[in-house]
């Protein structure tokens, strides 16, 4: 499917989903749905680097929180609409991704992964010590009184995140079918052979890192307005790193479908678990389950749910 057609089809599906949700008249659905959509963006963004090129990023939290804190910082200086904040968050996180990549992508993949861990901690420490955005005490954000477009502010945030999710998926889809997508695949398969075939591997990896980081930053930008109180502990929560790896891995890393499935599935399950108080109020059990699933899938079903469906289709096709 051509990129343009795909984008409009995705928009249509999203629009339909949004309107259906409005019909249910349950505000909480938008509240929870925002988190799920956020993970759709994070998982898709992670996969552009991790799934397509094979470079693992453990530092999702850094890029995500940078987007959130860019909003906090800008919010103290001037009142900006959310889409503008998203752009700012995307630029900052994209630049950080580019810089990080430039420093570490010449090394082996494992060193890049470890470096992303380091980045997350360094950025968190810097922000925790930056009093302008509240430091460890946190920062309060006041939602604007006038809600643009819709009646409820939460619905507005949901809509914005929905739009971002559509954009992220459209980008992932476009990359997959393009020359860039082929280049990414060769980097994942055999970097030395890719270089020998003329693929500028460093440049492509930098593109992937920047794009991935920027999308994560854009996902983080509305967060202060969603939670209204943001502190480093929640902004840099381990859950972001874990989920952004587990969702593509469980969903399937080779195409845009996997992260979407993984995020919708795991994200919804975690939201339901939290609301239904399945584990007696221990939020960590959420993460425990995600972790166990991650390990099970990485050992037994490396191509994720998409891979399992594909294998099943091939099996029944042969009969």
């Amino acid at each position, binding site marked *: 499917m051509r990129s343009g057609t795909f984008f409009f089809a995705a928009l249509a599906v999203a629009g339909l989903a949004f309107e259906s949700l409005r019909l249910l008249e349950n505000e909480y659905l938008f509240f929870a749905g925002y988190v799920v959509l956020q993970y759709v963006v994070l998982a898709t963004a992670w996969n552009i680097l991790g799934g397509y090129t094979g470079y693992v990023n453990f530092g999702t939290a850094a890029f995500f929180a940078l987007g959130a804190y860019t909003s906090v910082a800008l919010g103290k200086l001037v009142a900006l609409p959310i889409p503008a904040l998203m752009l700012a968050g995307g630029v900052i996180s994209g630049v950080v991704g580019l810089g990080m990549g430039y420093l570490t992508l010449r090394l082996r993949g494992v060193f890049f992964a470890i470096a992303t861990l380091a980045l997350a901690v360094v950025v968190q420490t810097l922000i925790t010590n930056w009093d302008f955005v509240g430091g460890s005490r946190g920062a309060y954000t006041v939602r604007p009184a006038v809600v643009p477009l819709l009646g409820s502010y939460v619905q507005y945030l949901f809509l914005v995140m929905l739009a971002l999710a559509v954009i992220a998926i459209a980008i992932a889809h476009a990359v997959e079918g393009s020359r860039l997508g082929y280049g990414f695949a060769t980097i994942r398969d055999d970097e030395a052979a890719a270089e*020998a*075939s003329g693929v500028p591997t460093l440049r492509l990896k930098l593109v992937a890192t920047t794009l991935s980081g920027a999308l994560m930053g854009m996902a983080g930008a509305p967060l202060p307005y969603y939670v209204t109180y943001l502190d480093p502990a929640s902004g840099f929560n381990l859950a972001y790193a874990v989920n952004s790896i587990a969702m593509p891995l469980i969903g399937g890393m*080779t195409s845009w479908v996997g992260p979407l499935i993984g995020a919708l599935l795991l994200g919804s399950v975690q939201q339901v678990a939290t609301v239904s108080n399945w584990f007696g109020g221990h939020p960590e059990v959420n993460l425990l389950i995600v972790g166990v699933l991650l390990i099970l899938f990485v050992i037994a079903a490396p191509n994720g749910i998409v891979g399992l469906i594909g294998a099943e289709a091939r099996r029944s096709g042969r009969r």
Partner: protein
Amino acid sequence: MSAALLQVENLSKRFGGFMALDAINLEVESGARLGLIGPNGSGKSTLVNCLCGTLRNDTGRVRFEGAVMDGLAAHQRTRLGMARSFQLPRPFGSLTVAENLRIPLLYTVNIRRGHHVPRAEIEAREAELLGLVGLAGKAHQRPRDLSQVEMRKLELARAMAAEPKLLIADEAMAGLSHAEVDDILALLRRLNEAGITIILIEHIMRAVMSFSDRLVVLVAGRKIADGRPDDVVRNPEVEKAYLGE
């Protein structure tokens, strides 16, 4: 005598304490058919890696068409006209056989021409190359479904897809039958007649002897002979160090 296409000056490469290549000097003229032989572990593949930029040499210099290659990444050297096949095949596992050939077309030929190669031409070229190496029926299969021999052919085809001026074939014929060896030799001769300089690294002596107009022998990282094949083969040092078939 035509101008030297490739000049290797005093090239050395160490791995820790181990001297893999020791002050190699080599000149290859445009249009030559160079055979490179030597026992296992003598440094042939290391030399290829240093020429093509996969490895960085410690001392010495590589010149291609007069331009110094130091500091250039492998992909840049490929775009300038050097292509190689890997001794142990390194296909792109998640792509089909045809798509494997598409990569050099998209990333080398594209760039060199300065504009996109049209889709139809890409597909035609893939089919042509697959036909030349005898893989025509396997275009839509994955490399993991190929035999070792077929993977070597794919390696060679992928190197050819980059439309090189210098093609380095690193043990492309290992495991091939007598007839298949002749096919590949004929293919390489045709490429050479069309103007492509070829460096053939092989253990199959009959292939090397019949193909090369010049023979270089590498033993334990040193070049011990360089000249006409008949002369080199009679060189007592070569006989002593490397008993061919």
